[in-house]
């Protein structure tokens, strides 16, 4: 636990990529293979085990230490995190081991993950759980208690990307990073893989349902090189569905989403559509987008959402929201890994794989020929009519790489819709933002029959401001509060913000009668007065 806590602290207290990688390497160098495996799984958030909730953790702490609840609540309000509050209070009470003292019963990360933490679930009462926890806490430093609390409540997060973890492993053990990434794809449990398998220099046959790591695109706006040659680029619509791989191996079919979830059960109708692949020779893997396709028309993501999270959709739901698929790429054909081939060749295999498909629901993504950048922009402006959220621009010679490598795959999304709205409510954030007002509600004007204008809540947004703006706004909010309702403050209607979003839909659940998709703050319009903000009618026109 000591080494893992130290690693957490090092990752958490630097923004330098180099130092993060160095810290990871230091850890893996000294850790046992079992601990290394758990560390990889925890850092990449492949597993999180919640044996108790934060609320239970609080109760256990209060019972075990007979701490005044009001004082814990005051503390929590300052800290904004139960796991951290408990750790700090234990230290203040003298229960935690001082940093300067060595632990007497130092247990490995593996011991904690496989024995101790799961064991907690065997105790039924708060008192019993409290006894066990107290005995653990007493031999841990406050920092270690914080980590343990996070692991028990399933809330362990650390500021390191999967990519950096993979890079550290790849550099330390001299294995190509693509190989490490591939082996980790789809892993959900410590029993799925061993650490030696992750870092093995040899090719290891992976489980047959294993997807390939998805190739991702960079934003077109970040492209430096600005020339265009029509024969270099394959331009496709960028659809807003669930990016997925259809995997056909060993006479079986799976659908894996980019979020590394096996979503086969949610889409039995899609499995049925892909039935012809199952009987094809050996393995076939197709990359594409799961969408709702009704009478040949691609529906919005909202329609697709009705199908998500349902383990076994009813026939009625499947009929109401028929699933479809737009195929982008072919990664494996007749058991051969095609990812090193250029895109133009992979497209040929894609056509071969899908040539016997007669259904309307499955299509190969259309490749547009675009002569120049003007045409590109023109095509992009037609995205909405084509049910797309922009364009994908891929080099015809590009291999299918792991993750987001520079240069050959670009996404060029349509500009979001924007409206100027007035800030009317604020609420404190959670976690590290618990004592800052960071959750905002914005309103638009509406006019009644007598011509009286009032503000109607229209969208909530959490992101889009930089830290300095958040601080400034937080100060302003505290000084211009009209009323407090619990954690929410109603504010003087003074500040105008430009809100960007992806679409507007009718909604009976909202007071405005509208629901906005992906609202976010684009700019703080210091230059605008509240009366200059947009009206609900303007928003309705965007329907």
């Amino acid at each position, binding site marked *: 636990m000591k080494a893992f806590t130290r690693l957490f602290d090092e990752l*958490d*207290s*630097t*923004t*330098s990529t180099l*130092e993060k990688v160095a810290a990871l390497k230091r850890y893996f160098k000294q850790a046992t293979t079992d601990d290394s495996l758990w560390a990889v799984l925890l850092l990449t958030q492949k597993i999180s085990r919640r044996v108790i909730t934060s609320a239970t953790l609080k109760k256990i702490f209060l019972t075990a230490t007979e701490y*005044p609840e*009001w*004082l814990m609540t*005051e*503390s929590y309000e*300052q*800290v*904004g*995190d139960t796991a*951290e*509050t408990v750790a*700090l*209070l234990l*230290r*203040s*009470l003298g229960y935690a081991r001082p*940093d*300067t003292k060595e632990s007497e019963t130092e247990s490995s990360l593996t011991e904690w993950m496989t024995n101790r933490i799961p064991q907690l679930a065997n105790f039924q009462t708060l008192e019993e759980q409290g006894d066990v926890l107290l005995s653990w806490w007493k031999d841990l430093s406050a920092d270690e208690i914080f980590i343990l609390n996070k692991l028990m409540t399933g809330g362990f997060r650390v500021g390191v990307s999967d990519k950096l973890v993979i890079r550290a492993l790849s550099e330390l053990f001299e294995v190509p990073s693509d190989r490490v990434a591939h082996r980790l794809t789809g892993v959900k449990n410590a029993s799925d893989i061993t650490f030696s398998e992750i870092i093995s220099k040899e090719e290891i046959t992976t489980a047959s349902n294993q997807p390939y790591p998805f190739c991702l695109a960079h934003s077109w706006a970040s492209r430096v090189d600005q020339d265009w040659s029509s024969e270099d680029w394959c331009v496709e619509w960028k659809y807003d569905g669930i990016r997925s791989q259809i995997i056909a191996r060993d006479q079986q079919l799976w659908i894996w989403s980019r979020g590394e979830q096996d979503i086969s059960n949610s889409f039995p109708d899609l499995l049925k559509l892909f039935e012809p692949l199952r009987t094809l020779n050996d393995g076939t893997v197709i990359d594409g987008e799961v969408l709702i396709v009704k009478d040949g028309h691609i529906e919005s993501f909202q329609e697709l959402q009705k199908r998500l999270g349902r383990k076994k959709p009813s026939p009625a739901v499947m009929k109401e929201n028929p699933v479809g698929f737009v195929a982008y790429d072919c990664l494996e054909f007749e058991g051969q890994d095609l990812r090193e081939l250029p895109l133009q060749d992979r497209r040929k295999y894609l056509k071969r794989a899908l040539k016997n498909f007669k259904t309307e629901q499955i299509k190969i993504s259309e490749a547009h020929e675009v002569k120049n950048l003007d045409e590109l922009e023109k095509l992009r402006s037609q995205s909405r009519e084509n049910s797309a959220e922009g364009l994908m621009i891929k080099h015809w010679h590009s291999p299918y790489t792991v993750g987001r490598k520079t240069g050959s795959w670009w996404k060029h999304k349509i500009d979001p819709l924007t409206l100027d709205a007035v800030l009317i409510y604020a609420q404190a954030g959670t*976690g*590290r*933002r*618990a*004592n*800052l007002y960071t959750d905002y509600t914005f309103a638009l004007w509406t006019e009644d029959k007598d011509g009286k204008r009032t503000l109607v809540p229209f969208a909530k947004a959490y992101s889009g401001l930089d*830290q300095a703006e958040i*601080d400034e706004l937080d100060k302003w909010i505290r000084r211009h509060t009209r009323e407090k309702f619990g954690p929410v403050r109603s504010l003087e209607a003074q500040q105008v913000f430009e809100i960007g979003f992806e679409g507007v839909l009718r909604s009976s659940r909202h007071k405005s009668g509208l629901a906005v998709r992906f609202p976010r703050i684009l700019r703080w319009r210091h230059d605008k007065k509240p009366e200059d903000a947009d009206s609900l009618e303007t928003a309705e026109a965007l329907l």
Partner: protein
Amino acid sequence: MEELIQLTKKGLYCARGDFYIDPWQPVETAVITHGHSDHARTGSKQYHASASCVPLLRHRLGPIHVESHEWGKPFQLSETKVSFHPAGHILGSAQVRVEHNGNVWVMSGDYKRTPDASCEPFEVVPCDVFISEATFALPVYSWEPGEVTAKKIFNWLHQDRTRPSIVFCYALGKAQRILAEMKRYTDETVYLHGSMAELTKLYRNHGIPMLPTELVADLPKDFDFSGKLILAPPSAHRSVWMKRFKEPQTAFASGWMQIRGARRRGGYEKGFVLSDHADWRELIQTINETKAKKIYLTHGREDVLARYLREKGLEVELLRTEYEGEQE
């Protein structure tokens, strides 16, 4: 019991002695606990301060009439007997003891009990009424000894010697404490932001042993700061002044850094928990040790501390002063 000290518009006033303690408006006679700007303000006719506070006060307030007093040595102000006792907050920081007719009040100013190599240690002064600060009056705040924190700064500095290491901290008190506590581990030169130059010199004149320092501004433009420790006030964070350091690692030293959210919010990579105010346990310990019958609480989380003390049976009242404690 007579109310020896009362809250007025200009500050805490003692009528029997006709003086104010740390007034926030100009007055005839001001008794000053310490040199921080929320306690020592300009414009009063006559000042009284501890001997080690006087140079800092002069530096901050310019030409003033100030009488210097030895620790624990009483002097008469009208009907009252007044004396200064170390508060352990910064160099020269004092608690003010006021006695009239056997009635003893102590105004603590800012104070702490954690050992500090750069100032006189806190002294418990028994009294009838104790006026305490409450900046960090939440049980989540508990400090380690300065030498432990200094070791952490030292380790952090040594972990990456390819980049400049900047610790942001307050120019009066905190900067000198770091220079003094770090002396246990190294003798390297530390580089200072201009605002810390004069104050650090005053500490040196007083005989506080500290690491050697140089001013960033005195060095040639191409000076390589890699692996060097630099101290600067929080106002320099993300300012133009930072431009001369190539990819520095940054940290903030403050009691607020105890909480992870506060560190993130400040945009610092690393937080060192270093406070010149008492933590929760020190506040309660001190209040108990003074054996005061009545407690007044000022700036900070006085609401929380008041409730806690009242539940323990103490008589507590709140005072709305204009002191700010430690800024986030």
